[in-house]
């Protein structure tokens, strides 16, 4: 049975992998003629709901994710919360992504239907996952394929431009997309540094070959999605001197990043590129973050002068 009522509203939480794939997702659903509703950028009251509904021992970004889903739940017909299992060959997403749809269903009542299709490249190519998404929305495979072509073009042509131009310091930032690009979570770090005239470089500004070259010399492959990308970027920063210094932003309870940090720390011991880790969670005081960032910038400044000339 088909009802010709208003256009179906698809809710996309502005959290998690939205921050990496929004050009693709947005184009895809709009090409198919749906209305896409996004939750607003993370804010304090949205986070409060997340803290209320999420399990207390999951990581900060996932708590944020819960807040976004809560905000959307009564405003849309379906929610796009896929089960991300593996996005790259031989890699796995963090278990929290695999379990997200289930955790949501168990914690928040009265959710609209979830588009919780599996994305698992180890089992099937993404196109099949998208066809399944289409099927649940009663869209033909043909239409899905056409929309996907356009969506992929949007994704590829998106400019992750964080440079200011100018000859200010070049600061690298290494972090998962939902940490670095979520302004609330990252305490507006990119904007703050840009305001000071600095140029920001993230993994998204590097071509894959650069990252792969660094990864190739690691003793063991990294099994986490985003792991190689982040470690490769950090190692590139440490080895090439392309940046004046870099920051690694991680969430307090993040298992994968606490392991990956060891690899970066290890290499950093023999590099003279200033580097600092900032650990973020829902209790983080912005003032504390800024203190560390300031000290980090001082370190870069003093390095170029050597000796406090007092």
């Amino acid at each position: 049975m088909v009802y010709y009522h208003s256009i179906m509203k698809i809710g996309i939480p502005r959290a998690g992998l939205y921050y990496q794939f929004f050009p693709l997702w947005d184009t895809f659903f709009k090409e198919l003629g749906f209305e896409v509703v996004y939750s607003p950028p993370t804010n304090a009251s949205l986070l409060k709901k997340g803290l209320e509904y999420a399990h207390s021992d999951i990581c900060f970004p996932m708590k944020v994710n819960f807040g976004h889903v809560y905000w959307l739940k009564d405003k849309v017909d379906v929610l796009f919360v896929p089960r991300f299992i593996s996005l790259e060959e031989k890699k796995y997403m963090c278990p929290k992504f695999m379990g997200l749809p289930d955790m949501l269903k168990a914690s928040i009542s009265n959710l609209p239907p979830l588009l919780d299709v599996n994305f698992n490249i180890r089992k099937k190519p993404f196109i099949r996952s998208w066809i399944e998404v289409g099927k649940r929305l009663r869209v033909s495979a043909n239409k899905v394929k056409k929309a996907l072509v356009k969506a992929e073009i949007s994704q590829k042509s998106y400019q992750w431009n964080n440079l200011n131009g100018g000859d200010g310091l070049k600061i690298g930032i290494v972090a998962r997309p939902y940490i670095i690009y979520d302004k609330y979570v990252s305490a507006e770090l990119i904007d703050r540094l840009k305001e000071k005239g600095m140029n920001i470089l993230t993994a998204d500004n590097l071509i894959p070959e650069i990252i792969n070259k660094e990864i190739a010399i690691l003793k063991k492959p990294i099994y986490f999605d985003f792991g190689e990308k982040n470690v490769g970027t950090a190692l590139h920063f440490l080895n090439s001197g392309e940046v004046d210094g870099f920051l690694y932003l991680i969430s307090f309870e993040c298992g994968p990043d606490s392991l990956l940090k060891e690899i970066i720390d290890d290499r950093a011991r023999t590099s003279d590129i200033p580097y600092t880790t900032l650990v973020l969670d829902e209790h983080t005081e912005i003032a504390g973050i800024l203190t560390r960032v300031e000290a980090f910038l001082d370190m870069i400044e003093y390095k170029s002068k050597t000796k406090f000339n007092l």
Partner: protein
Amino acid sequence: MWLGVDVGSVSVDTVLINDKIEVFKSAYLLTAGMPIEAIKEGLRKSRDSVPVLGVGTTGSGRELAAVLTNADIVKNEITAHAIAAAHFVPDVRTVIEIGGQDSKIIILKDGIPVDFAMNTVCAAGTGSFLDHQAQRLGIPIEKFGQLALQSKSPARIAGRCTVFAESDMIHKQQLGYGIEDIIAGLCKSLVRNYLVNVAKGKPILPPIVFQGGVASNEGIRKALEEELGMKVFVPTYNKLMGAIGAAMLAKKVMKDKRKTSFRGFDICDMEFNTQSFICEDCPNTCEIVKISSNGKVLATWGSRCGKWDLSK
């Protein structure tokens, strides 16, 4: 003379230094939840008729101190501590700073900081841990260090967090351990906590400068030396190092600036009012704090978006 003000979560330190970075006057005051009063009192105590040529502020309350004094430079406490340590011990490689609620490690090379870390969430490696336990044992914190030194076999106290340490300590007391052994055990557990949580993974090389309020505690110093197997140097003004660093920075910036913006010691007698309100302009609902004197707003802060900030 140059004035340095360090406003931390537990104490306010003020210092006046001369040209040779000698401490001329100083004060160390507990904040007791009233930082403005503490800053005014600290300034009253270091008040002098000699002209102040520059003012620097540091610490977690550095912005507040800067507004009150109208400072020439505002600097984070990591840099301020590093600068002061490198002045007194020019070849310092490691600065260990343990304060009331914060602790940090700074690694230096050729007199400049090259790496640092601060405690993030846990208070188990800071002075408040000791204060709390001293209170529980009914021993004045000043006697803590001396008592710890008398211990022949420190009790092993699990120090992963204050809660565990406390229950472990009660257990050891019930087993009949002497108070000095328990205190020495607490010192060791604080040091281990610091090394695991704050100094984790950092290369600790000599010379080591140990500063901050907790460095006055001989028990901690001994425990630190034992744990590291190295001597640590506690500077004479261990409690004031942040403030000294801030004053040194003021001295430095005043090289290129003719006249200090310091409001003068009259601020000790000025009334400052703080008012707070909730901004409802977006869902962040920030708590905005406004500081004013004589009906004139000096500063506002607390907004996530910066819309209430006054340009300085």
